[in-house]
């Protein structure tokens, strides 16, 4: 078993400038119940303006005449803030009103199709495409959208509000229905800015945070606040928020992939390359200055190459560096510089030290919308991009989940294969876990999760929990107390929660598909994408993710379905000018930064030192850090 966690690489962020982003925050209140008081305009403004950093350049609001619904919007202007494209935006007949956060990358094609059908456009914005596309197809429109989005759309004819979120959940959207009034916003903390939203804790969210290191959706730390699930929509009608309906499911994509015929083996590299070129091109707007945040990894390097191929001429790259690592194998700066030279881009290095970390820490914790043990790296990445004057960024996040870059793709099938039989013996797993708990403290260097191997390692859900888990269920009483831990585990049902993401795979349990679905539906969604959102938004930076794309997944899933192990070589070879072999052939190492050490020192130590479980010598840093961010949340 590898170490519990390695911090997310700092270096897979690519930045550019483009013309029409909607890097925003949305908020709304729907007083749907007949007994509810009309929407208080001041309350909506407080929620909306709590998200000022998400959209510092503009704000908008709309209230229905009867006062039953209000929509708010904060907007970031990249080049122009055209009044006619301001939000919330309504249809010409006033029957539809939308507040939208995100990017629809194929909006131009959709716009042309709608014009051909007779729809008239007043603006060039993708927001207006949403209005017409909804008018044309209703919720079936969601399957046509390629991009990252979260929006609220009021349909006056239906007297209902539609809340929808992109397939992977790149853009966040939360709602709080108190039984009379439903409030929604891009951030949990924006909802909490309303004094009307209950702060009653959600044990499932708290337990989930300690088990996974991030709060598993749809739960939050608060009982009343829920996430609109990724790839889903829901209606708020006169009966309140309805059950979320899924229009996209990664497991189903993998399940359907088994029916698709494959290209000849010789054509596979070209096929993959074409799919990657397509997604990168679709995420970019040409003829604008481009920058890249570059690491020694394959994802960001290959993306720079693909951006070159997509026609980006001026690419500026930046890399985070740490003095502590200078001259050591852990220093990524030299390899990143070599990639920059390889693709002929302008390169910068931004040095980070502990003093800056400690100085930024209060702001980091304030910006962290929900507690996460990751995200520090995303913070400094975004900060560097912001300092460079950039407002839009492209990230290589998602490459490991798609191409099998994580050790979990190698290890989980092995664990399941070897452990399913002993794990099936009733009681054996529990006994070994208890023996481990009794004797492990006598030995140094014993992984604190090793005792769970027989209990959890025999199934993919259990093995994933073992691999990715921050704490194990048995640890929760020591952290939360018996009662809260029991309530949290009962409400969350961790293994069932993990298994739910695999349900639509059906009988198709190819290892790569299974682990890709687990990593994308849980780790990527609840941690990486969420951290990317709050950390970048705090710096008024939009991040785009070409490797987290439903079209790309649908294209590559038939190819990747039956593979075993790391397929990153396909990504490395995809640019016309392939990545340098020193990067492409570099074994994936546990990416480390000194941040892990900084996170345990200074004033934060008082949080974890109070808990005996965390004072043991071999306690992983992330476990200690979890108590710090949880207290801040």
């Amino acid at each position: 078993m590898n170490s519990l966690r390695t911090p997310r690489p700092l270096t897979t962020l690519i930045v550019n400038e483009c013309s029409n982003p909607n890097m925003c925050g949305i908020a709304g209140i729907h007083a749907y119940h007949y007994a509810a008081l009309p929407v208080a305009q001041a309350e909506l403004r407080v929620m909306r303006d709590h998200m000022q950093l998400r959209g510092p350049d503009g704000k908008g609001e709309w209230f229905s005449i009867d006062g039953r619904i209000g929509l708010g919007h904060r907007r970031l202007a990249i080049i122009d803030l055209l009044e006619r494209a301001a939000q919330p935006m309504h249809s010409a007949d006033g029957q539809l009103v939308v507040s939208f956060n995100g990017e629809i990358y194929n909006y131009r094609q959709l716009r042309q199709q709608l014009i051909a059908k007779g729809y008239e456009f007043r603006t060039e914005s993708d927001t207006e495409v949403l209005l017409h596309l909804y008018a044309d197809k209703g919720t079936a429109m969601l399957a046509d959208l390629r991009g990252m989005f979260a929006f609220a759309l009021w349909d006056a004819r239906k007297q209902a509000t539609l809340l929808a979120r992109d397939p992977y959940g790149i853009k966040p959207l939360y709602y709080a229905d108190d039984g009379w009034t439903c409030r929604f916003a891009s951030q949990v903390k924006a909802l909490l800015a309303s004094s009307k939203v209950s702060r009653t804790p959600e044990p499932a969210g708290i337990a989930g945070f300690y088990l996974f290191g991030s709060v598993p959706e749809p739960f939050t730390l608060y009982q009343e606040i829920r996430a609109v699930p990724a790839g889903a929509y829901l209606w708020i009608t006169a009966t309140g928020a309805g059950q979320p309906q899924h229009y996209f499911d990664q497991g189903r994509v993998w399940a359907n992939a088994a029916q698709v015929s494959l290209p000849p083996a010789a054509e596979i590299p070209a096929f993959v390359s074409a799919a990657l070129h397509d997604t990168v091109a679709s995420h970019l707007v040409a003829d604008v200055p481009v920058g890249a945040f570059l690491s020694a990894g394959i994802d960001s390097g290959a993306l720079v190459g693909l951006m070159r191929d997509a026609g980006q001429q001026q690419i500026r790259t930046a890399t985070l560096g740490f003095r502590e690592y200078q001259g050591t194998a852990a220093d990524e700066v030299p390899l990143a510089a070599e990639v920059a030279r390889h693709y002929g881009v302008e390169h910068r290095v931004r040095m980070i030290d502990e003093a800056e970390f400690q100085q930024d820490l209060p702001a980091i914790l304030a910006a962290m919308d929900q507690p996460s043990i990751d995200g520090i790296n995303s913070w400094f990445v975004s900060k560097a991009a912001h300092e460079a004057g950039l407002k839009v960024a492209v990230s290589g996040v998602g490459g490991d989940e798609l191409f099998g870059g994580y050790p979990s793709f190698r290890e989980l099938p092995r664990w399941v294969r070897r452990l399913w039989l002993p794990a099936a013996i009733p009681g054996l797993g529990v006994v070994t876990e208890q023996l481990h708990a009794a004797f492990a403290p006598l030995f140094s260097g014993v992984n604190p999760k090793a005792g769970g191997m027989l209990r959890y390692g025999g199934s993919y859900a259990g093995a994933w929990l073992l691999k990715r888990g921050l704490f194990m269920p048995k640890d929760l009483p020591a952290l939360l107390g018996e009662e809260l831990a029991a309530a949290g585990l009962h409400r969350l049902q961790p293994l069932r929660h993990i298994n739910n993401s695999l349900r639509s795979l059906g009988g198709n349990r190819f290892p790569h598909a299974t682990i890709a679905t687990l990593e994308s539906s849980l780790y990527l969604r609840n941690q990486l994408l969420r951290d990317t959102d709050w950390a970048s938004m705090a710096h008024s930076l939009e991040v785009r993710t070409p490797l987290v794309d439903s079209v790309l997944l649908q294209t590559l899933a038939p190819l990747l379905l039956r593979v075993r192990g790391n397929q990153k070589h396909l990504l490395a070879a995809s640019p016309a000018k392939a990545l340098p072999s020193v990067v492409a052939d570099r074994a994936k190492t546990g990416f480390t930064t000194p941040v892990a050490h900084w996170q345990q020192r200074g004033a934060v130590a008082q949080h974890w030192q109070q808990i005996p479980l965390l004072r043991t010598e071999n306690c992983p840093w992330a476990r200690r850090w979890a108590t710090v961010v949880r207290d801040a949340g």
Partner: protein
Amino acid sequence: MPAERMIMLALVTDAYGAGGGIAQYNRDWLAAIASAEGCEQIAVIARHGRIVTNGVPSKVHQLGIGKGRLSFLMRATVASLRLPRVDVIFCGHLFMVPLAVVLARVSGAQVWLQLHGIEAWERPGFLLRWAVERVQLVTAVSRHTRRLFLQWARCTPESVKVLPNTVAGEFTPGPLSADLQTRHGTAGRRVLLTVSRLAASEQYKGHDRVIQALAALRLQEPDLLYLIAGEGDDKPRLAALVHKLQLGEHVRFIGYVPDAELPALYRLADVFVMPSSGEGFGIVFLQAAATGIPVVAGDSDGSRDPLRDGAAGYLVATSDTQAIAAQISAALKADRPAVADTGVFCTKNFAALAVSLAALSDSGPKKATGEKVKG
């Protein structure tokens, strides 16, 4: 409503031939669902009350009163088997939900559970929790009850809705009853009123705190009279408190008041006050407000709903006697509204929402085969 008209089985504590808030609620519910186009019939089994004919919608069939548990169980089971089919089982009380769930399993029906208040606030035993997790729709009378239910019930919040109590048409502003004035000695006095049971198990109603507030209030309002309507085993404790605080001239226990007399009693009062911390909803607040008198209520339970978060009355921290006195004083000084602010809690709104929820309750998956079971 689906194309095939809905057949429902209602398991209730009481509905017809019975008094009290829950019976009224169930009658409202039955009338609302029966009025829907998509409803074919509703079979009702009650624990209490009696079979009546007047005022019962034609689609409602009273299949008997099962006064004992076994009798109720037998009647409900037989009804579920004899009906041509059952689409939805309405379970009018939390304690009946295991039976409703078992019958639903057999008949392929969906279960709609109704929560009235305090019974749903605390985490119950395993059987009830097991059954609750198998319910398709839950309605609570207030947001507070919904919130507390969701703290222990592993249900999705989207399946738990709020369907509030209504206020009956006879609760309207009107002239003072000279008879009642004489009987209760209210002529020439400013009157505070509380209507509730005086149960030792329900001390959360807050009579004692009103009495304590009265000790201070009488200095400003020497003619103040506090009428306590209702009977129960907590009365001696309250009477002792009145005696201890020497408030005998200012407090009067008027005993049980029949439903028919309630509108006139409310009109007699200047302020209705009940700083309770245990109301599922508090229908008395609606009744009082509907007769046009200001209302003072607790701010931490279902009382917030009839008072619409303070827009329709005075909310107060129930443990703060000084605050209670201050809010009573403010309510005494306030002008009475010309029109009562309780219109939203009319039966028309209730019925429209109940019918929408009925469609929702019947929209879930049917048994494993997707087929409804024919009887």
